């Protein structure tokens, strides 16, 4: 078997195992949480009998392992159960939310990734000169400020004072793409500012590292221009570390947007999760956790596989 296929198969298998382990952790974590759903639903005045009845109805009387496997097999078949608080099917309510979160993450990534890589290349081209220092200072400053603060500041100045963008980013299915994009302009800006620094610094560092190599000198001595040297000879050898940090940030855009969604009242997974954590709606929390874990592990697996494919020694063994 070609070694690359073998390595990719290994990554797939490992990721599946990891996701399984994550599902155990999520289930165990939510199970040992203090508090009782039945009590929450029925309130303080509930009688012991009604509590016991409700627990039985919810399947809480069965042993944890049984409940775990029921949950897992359900999840594998696309059934994440029903929300305790409103009795609705979780997959139905989650589907729209997940779509919205991915929509926001996608547009944030479309802006942030090329911008970060471009700024990284620019910083290399003008390293140790003012453009490099300015780029680093601005991106590092923006990552150092908490995202909710950036969110509120942008909301106040751009949304309220200037009136350029709506302060509430609620979107509906009936909106056109343009309207949706207008609505999410501010959260996309905030997310871009949060993830830009990592990716830009990593691109800069990875390419600068490669620029020390003897083959860069060879390229320069061929009479190539600075940009040709960076793009043709340095960048292909810097892909692996850059892809890794890009994927980590994409994962963050999906699973880490809770705060931003809440600040901008955006109907995504984050808000949904926060609402149901407050109500101790365990199946919803579990479902969200599982989806977040799957996204995280999936994107990291993609990063690993791209790194493997970017290595000519693995692609073309002796």
């Amino acid at each position, binding site marked *: 078997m070609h070694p690359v296929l073998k390595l990719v198969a290994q990554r797939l298998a490992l990721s599946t195992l990891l996701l399984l382990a994550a599902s155990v952790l999520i289930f165990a974590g939510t199970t040992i949480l203090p508090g009782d759903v039945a009590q929450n639903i029925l309130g303080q005045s509930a009688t012991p009998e009604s509590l016991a009845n409700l627990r039985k109805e919810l399947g809480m009387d069965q042993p944890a392992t049984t409940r775990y496997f029921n949950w897992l097999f359900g999840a594998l078949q696309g059934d994440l159960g029903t929300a305790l608080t409103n009795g609705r099917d979780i997959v139905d309510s989650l589907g729209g939310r997940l779509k919205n979160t991915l929509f926001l993450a996608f547009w944030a990534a479309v802006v942030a990734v090329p911008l970060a890589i471009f700024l990284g290349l620019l910083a290399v081209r003008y390293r140790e000169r003012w453009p490099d220092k300015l780029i680093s200072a601005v991106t590092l400053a923006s990552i150092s400020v908490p995202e909710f603060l950036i969110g509120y500041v942008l909301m106040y100045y751009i949304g309220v004072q200037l009136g350029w963008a709506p302060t509430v980013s609620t979107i509906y299915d009936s909106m056109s793409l343009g309207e949706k994009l207008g609505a999410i302009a501010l959260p996309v800006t905030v997310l871009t500012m949060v993830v830009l620094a990592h990716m830009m610094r990593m691109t800069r560092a990875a390419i600068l590292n490669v620029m020390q*190599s*003897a*083959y860069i*000198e*060879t*390229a*320069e*001595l*061929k*009479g*190539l*221009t600075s940009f*040709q040297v960076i793009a043709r*000879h340095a960048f*292909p*050898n810097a892909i692996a570390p850059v892809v890794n940090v890009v994927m980590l940030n994409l994962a963050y855009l999906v699973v880490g947007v809770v705060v931003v969604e809440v600040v901008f009242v955006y109907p995504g997974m984050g808000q949904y999760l926060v609402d149901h954590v407050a109500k101790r709606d365990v199946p919803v929390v579990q479902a969200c956790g599982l989806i977040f874990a799957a996204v995280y592990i999936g994107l990291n697996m993609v990063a690993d596989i791209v790194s493997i494919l*970017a290595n*000519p*020694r693995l692609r*073309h063994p*002796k």
Partner: protein
Amino acid sequence: MSDKLLKVENLKIGARIYPPGEKPRNIDIVHGVSFELEKGKVLGLIGESGAGKSTIGLASMAYGRGGVEITGGKVWVNGREILGTNLKDLRKLRGTEVTYVSQSAAASFNPAKKIMEQVIEASLHQGKFSKKEAEARAVELFTKLGLPDPENIGDRYPHQVSGGQLQRCMTALALCPEPDLVVFDEPTTALDVTTQIDVLMAIKDAIRDTGVAALYITHDLAVVAQVSDEIMVLRMGDMVEHGTTDQIINNPVEEYTRDLVSVRSTQHDGKPPTDNPVLTVENVTARYKGTNFDVLHNVTMELHPGQTLAVVGESGSGKSTTARVITGLLPPREGKIHFDGRDLSSDLEGRSRDDLRELQMIYQMADVAMNPRQTVGTIIGRPLEFYFGMRGAEKKKRILELLEEIEMGPEFMDRYPAELSGGQKQRVCIARALAAKPKVIICDEVTSALDPLVADGILKLLENLQKIENVAYLFITHDLATVKAIADSIAVMYQGRVVRYGPKAEVLAPPFDDYTDLLLSSVPEMRLGWLEEVVQSRKMESAGN
């Protein structure tokens, strides 16, 4: 203004250095060097590290490596002064009129691109040839340089060919755009001697056939004598002597050149083996963890007290692996290590502190074998504390004794490794090994990273110390000249086996086995015409077979 291909006048080169803990300052690397080169001629630039050879070579492309800057003088290529021209015109010069072959082809080829793409890149970029023409020319060069499967080798990635082949590909890369001048910067230094001959001959033929002129930079006078018409000797940025190859080799005028020509002067008569070897390697077979092939097969050798056993071979022959087995870093699959009348445990954990003390090691890279944040005194003092529990005045006295033994003054005690020269660093490593009062020191390529004259000094020191301390050396090297200078007995290794073993006089006397013969005849000799003789006699031999 000149019909010469290359004319360098009063070239001055400086660099900005950043010493740790000090303000950056400018230093001069080359102080006013002048020379000329005609079309089709080869000029050898020779000198030790820091002589400014590579810097001068790159200056002929108006290129400064890192913080290096050309601070004065003039350089003409094809009658055009190039130091004053702008970057755009320089880019037209680089890669077409003047090209460069570096020391390490392995590092100078982009690992992510195919060889062909890189070989023809400059020609395409400068619009010299169409893609088809350039590829045809590359294949022609691959053939001329004796590369296997010249039609298809360009489709491979750099890691898919051997070091010697890649070095020839680098030469093809430099010759492809039909340059007027090629700068060869130590093109064979990183290769094994047996590979060096082929590459050297390929380069020499290619230079002759294409009529290109060349600057050939190396620290090895014997190598440069084979390929160049003229030689310029450099030392610390100054020209020492410039003459025809014949004159420099046979009638050097300057004392420094005479030193260079006569450098392997140390001769050492081998001592006969004793009855009680201090170290015996017995039938050792070993493999690395996670692999399924043996890298050592039935290796057997003996080292006698106060003597030197040289282990020679090419890279990958198993020399260093033998050292790893002896030190316990790699437990053998079969076989035993006897040391001073007792069996040594095969793994490191099973060895006593005395076992460790009596078997010390010195490495090739003195730089990385020392903690850069410790002073020389701390470095040498550590084994004194660890093995003998020495403290205070007693320890200091011993450190000073050791410094004296390695011919360094007491003022070095408070210096840091970064403040020492390469030779001094290696001396400190020797002192650290001696501090443990060992019976055996394993020296792993300890002179390979040093300039010839400095290396010679280290060998003399090791020999003196052997007389004083009666310590035995297991001397691992790929350099046969070093072996002749220092060994009492020799083990020649090839592909994990000892192919020839015995007292020096026997090993180095005919009849030879095939491999030892190849190895011995591959060592460059400092006389004109040696390369052709060797290649000719090999051709006749293979025709005879």
